[in-house]
């Protein structure tokens, strides 16, 4: 059983066990002081969403840290310009805090736009800017007039909520671009990819599937993103939204203003991948009767390529247990299904920013006894890992050392990863990643595992 002292009283409502009655998990709360949350801030949310727009200037208006810690850390690839891989900041100093940062912001913007010739500039506000009250709107407007490119303020003061509020701020900033370019050449059989960040080229895999189905992709928001594409988003007939709401707000804004519908998709795992493609095909079936068949062919041929490989990995992984802790709960659903395909059970699942609906669904799809947790922290996670004695942990960089210290395998499923995990081929990569960690002989030497082997030995009467 979990050592209950690990969970602070005020966090008890944020932990739930499947099968223990109706789920009423507390979430969407401000992180508890001193709890060492794995969450970041509003700024992080905005930065994550807009990061892969590769031909825009991303200027962090604030002190040096916010820019330094987000410099080229994500695996979002670009097929062309790579401005997103640079880190720009106004690097505010004491005198700017006292006298205001507007002059420095304006000068920095003019200088960087002149030097880097971006298609647009996003200006992120940080905690400090929210406090000193710089009028970013006014500065951006002035610079926009002087340079002729869109200069978009992102209201992402770190302390004004969690990552979710950052998503909304990013969507609001992007929405200013939407509808500002000609869409007369956009065909009716067209879509936008929302909420995919082209980590390790994943957007390209999905784009290839969609094109083989006969669809035109107008824009990817924001993987391998381009400013001019975002201007034309409203031309596409359907917005396919992935991820836990990072770009959902934008899809809703477009639906409201331009009447273009959206659907939720997931490009992770076999079922969700296929289901998403079929869902999109169905949407266009009345315009293009052949699309269902082309989609079925595509799914069949892609599955054919990966099934033998998957079966080999499954043979080794069958019966092993996994823990999942991710930023958005949406990814967790696909991961649970993916693990089932590998013959594995997810015994712990949690997210930084899940909603009540997300957790209710998780309670439904998980086996009884599964631990479901909102906004966890290292001590809780290590306790859950031990209690469930999992073999593999799926998470991001901050979770990796927790797993490794406990002698548990790890699969990086965050934006730092360099291996595509989306699409059918991504499922095979995922299986390979999990396999490479779970099957490594190094665990034989990890003290906690050694102890387990010792215990097994005792039971078998091998102990002296």
């Amino acid at each position, binding site marked *: 059983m979990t050592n209950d*002292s*690990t969970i602070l009283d005020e966090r008890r409502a944020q932990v739930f066990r499947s099968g223990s009655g109706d789920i009423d998990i507390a979430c969407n709360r401000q*992180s*508890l*002081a*001193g*709890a*060492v*949350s794995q*969450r*970041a*801030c*509003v*700024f*992080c949310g905005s930065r994550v969403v807009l990061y892969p727009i590769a031909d825009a200037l991303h*200027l962090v208006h*604030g002190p*040096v*840290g*916010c*820019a*330094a*810690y*987000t*410099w080229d850390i994500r695996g979002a690839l670009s097929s062309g310009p790579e401005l997103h891989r640079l*880190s*720009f*900041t*106004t*690097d*505010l*100093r004491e005198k*700017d*805090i006292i006298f205001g940062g507007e002059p420095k912001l304006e*000068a*920095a*913007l003019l*200088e960087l736009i002149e030097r880097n010739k971006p298609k647009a500039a996003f200006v992120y506000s940080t*905690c*400090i800017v*929210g*406090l000193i009250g710089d009028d970013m709107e006014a500065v951006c407007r002035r610079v926009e007039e002087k340079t002729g490119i869109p200069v978009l303020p992102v209201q992402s003061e*770190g*302390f004004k*909520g969690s990552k979710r509020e950052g998503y909304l701020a990013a969507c609001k900033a992007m929405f200013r671009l939407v509808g500002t370019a000609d869409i007369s050449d956009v065909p009716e059989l067209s879509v936008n990819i929302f909420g995919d960040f082209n980590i390790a080229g994943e957007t390209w895999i999905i784009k290839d599937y969609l094109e083989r189905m006969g669809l035109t992709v107008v824009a990817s928001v924001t993987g391998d993103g381009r400013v001019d594409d975002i201007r034309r988003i409203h031309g596409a007939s359907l917005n396919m939204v992935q991820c836990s709401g990072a770009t959902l707000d934008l899809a809703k804004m477009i639906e409201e203003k331009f009447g273009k519908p959206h659907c939720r998709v997931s490009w992770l795992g076999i079922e969700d991948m296929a289901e998403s493609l079929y869902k999109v095909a169905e949407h266009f079936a009345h315009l293009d009767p052949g699309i269902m068949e082309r989609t079925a062919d595509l799914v069949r041929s892609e599955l054919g390529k990966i099934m033998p490989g998957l079966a080999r990995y499954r043979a080794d992984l069958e019966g092993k247990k996994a823990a999942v802790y991710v930023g958005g709960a949406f990814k967790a659903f696909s991961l649970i299904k993916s693990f089932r395909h590998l013959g594995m059970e997810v015994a712990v699942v949690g997210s930084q920013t899940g909603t009540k609906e997300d957790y209710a669904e998780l309670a439904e799809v998980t086996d009884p006894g599964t631990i479901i947790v909102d906004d966890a922290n*290292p*001590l809780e996670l290590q306790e859950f890992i*031990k209690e469930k004695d999992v073999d593999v942990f799926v998470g*991001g*960089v901050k979770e*990796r*050392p927790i797993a*490794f*210290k*406990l*002698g548990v395998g790890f699969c990086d499923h965050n934006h730092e990863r360099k291996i595509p995990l989306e699409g059918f081929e991504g499922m095979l990569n995922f299986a390979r990643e999990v396999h490479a960690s779970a099957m490594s002989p190094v665990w034989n030497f*990890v*003290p*906690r595992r050694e*102890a387990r082997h010792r215990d097994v030995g005792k039971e078998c009467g091998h102990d002296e």
Partner: protein
Amino acid sequence: MTNNPAAKNAVSTTNACKLCTPLGASLAFKGVEGAVPFLHGSQGCATYMRRYIISHFREPIDIASSALGEKQAVYGGGPNLKKGILNVMKKYSPSLVGVASTCLTETIGDDMGLILHEFREEFSDLDLPEVVHVSTPSYQGTHSDGFHRAVHALTDQLADPEAEKNERIALFPGMVSPAEIRLLKDIFREYGLTPTVLPDISDTLDGPALEDYEPVASGGTPVADIKALPGAAASVEFGSCLPRESGGTCLEKRFGVLNTRLPIPLGVRACDDFYDALAELSGSCIPRRYEQERGRLVDAYVDGHKYVFGKRAVVYGEENLVVALTAFLAEIGVQPVLVGTGAEGKRLAEAVESACGDLLREQPLVREGVDFHDIAEEAEALTPELVLGNSKGQRYARAWNAPLIRAGFPIHDRFGGQRLKGIGYEGTQELFDRIVNALIDKKQSDSPIGWGYI
């Protein structure tokens, strides 16, 4: 040229060559036994820094946060700070909580000293940990400043004026690696000296695989040892650009503990100074082991000198480290052409000139307050053939087609950054080997012949 430590002329910053102050303070607090670093500010700061530090050390890095929201930013963060410490106490049972401020709490004017005073009064019935606080607004200085400020705060706030005289030597090593601290402790031991190393990250940031998870990693400077520092026989601190207020000067000013400031012992001359200082402190001569190490190092300098002579190097990063690296390059015959740091007001040019002595035929350009954009702008014309610094210059070294010798923090694109050594004769030997081999490797891969025998 060195008299012209030109600051950058751009207003904007592109790819900063520095990190923020609270990160440095967190690193320093991680080196105290049973300590939990605590950032008084928004949740994001702690999380970002944790991720950044984890990627270097590959260890769990728990940094608590007062997780201020909009309401607290308006009405003050005091209640959250107190509650946060109580929660940390419940979960981690720390012996020390190291509280560092952030730009948010500095700007809203939270008086941490006062809040913590209230905290101690309010909860005097509890078994409270030591709470040390340091002011680290990120708009003031760099991570290096934050680190040294935290070390000063630990010394100043914990030192017990009644501490009994003892034989220990206080050692303030600065931002060196866990492996280097282990090495330093060995060296002291060989001289028969017992150091109190502050901070001591040798185990806390490079720990072994264990049977069970430790909420706070074992190791670090015991709080009792920090309290006893005023009784130390002497103190030694490393760095050529240290702030006026440091751990060592605090002990000297307040308690009369004689402080010796030495350059980071990297390279034969800086090592000689260090080992001489130890000989003097211990009253014994250099152990034969180190005499041999020194001899082998000089022998290697001779064996390898032609591979490195005249190579044009760019050095960047934390100010104390770049001075040490530049001085070392000068003694092996590499020509440093550009030395840069993101820090300002460090008198870097003077430090470099004095550390290189008359070994250099030409002084390098020395730049403070620069970012990587500025460094690249000047470096390109200087055609560098060798680059020394942390991982963040990787894209530039790659563009110049020059090998990057990784040193300092952070090492995000190589394995084992926490175990890199550059100090002592032993560490210098490792660094020298790495440099020679990087140049040989480049020669090999650039050549159509391949050179299997060099």
